[in-house]
């Protein structure tokens, strides 16, 4: 996707079925690899990580775009600044 002359990538991290600390760690690894402006989408099922990933975003100064809940799964969209 092209936005304002820059290519914006979406990086998907599928941690469904994974437990502590894997969702948080895989989220962090993806953020480190992403370029500024990229969007990281984390898909998971681990309940605590749904609130802890936004907490990590707060301490890392990242923008949480959306937290979506559907049945036993959640999806968090984050913008890499």
């Amino acid at each position, binding site marked *: 996707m092209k936005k304002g002359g820059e290519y914006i990538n979406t990086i998907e991290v599928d941690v469904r079925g*994974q437990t502590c*600390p894997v969702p948080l*760690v895989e989220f962090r*690894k993806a953020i480190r690899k992403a370029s500024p402006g990229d969007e990281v989408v984390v898909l998971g099922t681990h309940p605590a990580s749904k609130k802890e990933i936004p907490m*990590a975003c707060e301490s*890392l100064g990242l923008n949480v775009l959306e937290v979506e809940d559907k049945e036993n799964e959640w999806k968090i969209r984050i913008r890499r600044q």
Partner: protein
Amino acid sequence: MGNKAVIIVHSGDMDKIYSALIIGNGALSMGLDASLYFTFWGLQRLKKGALDKGPLSKMHMLGLVKWIVKKRMQKANVASLEKLMKDYKELGGRIIACEMTMEIMGIRKEELHTEWIDEYGAVGTYIHEAKDASITLFI
């Protein structure tokens, strides 16, 4: 206070090595720096092939309960200690090995996973690392 977690890993028990690596990875994931200072029984776990070879801290019972716990961990999809160590290093976690323990226990560098170890030090290294850390634990 610096945004850093510094953990002394004194125990070599499998469950406690899990605690140390999970907390270390958690700290790094939340944007803190992390250092693990391996000493005494903990340092044994840095020997080649020894990371998951520690006993359980309670109810080890000649390895029977450890075997059951490992099976249950696999079923629950808990990451292996090897993966946690790999992630910890990838996220920039530091490992310090206690030189005095190496001397007392006759451990040579060649026996250790030197690729994981950033520094060989003593108490001064720990204090230097921990004096401005916001989290410090003894495991």
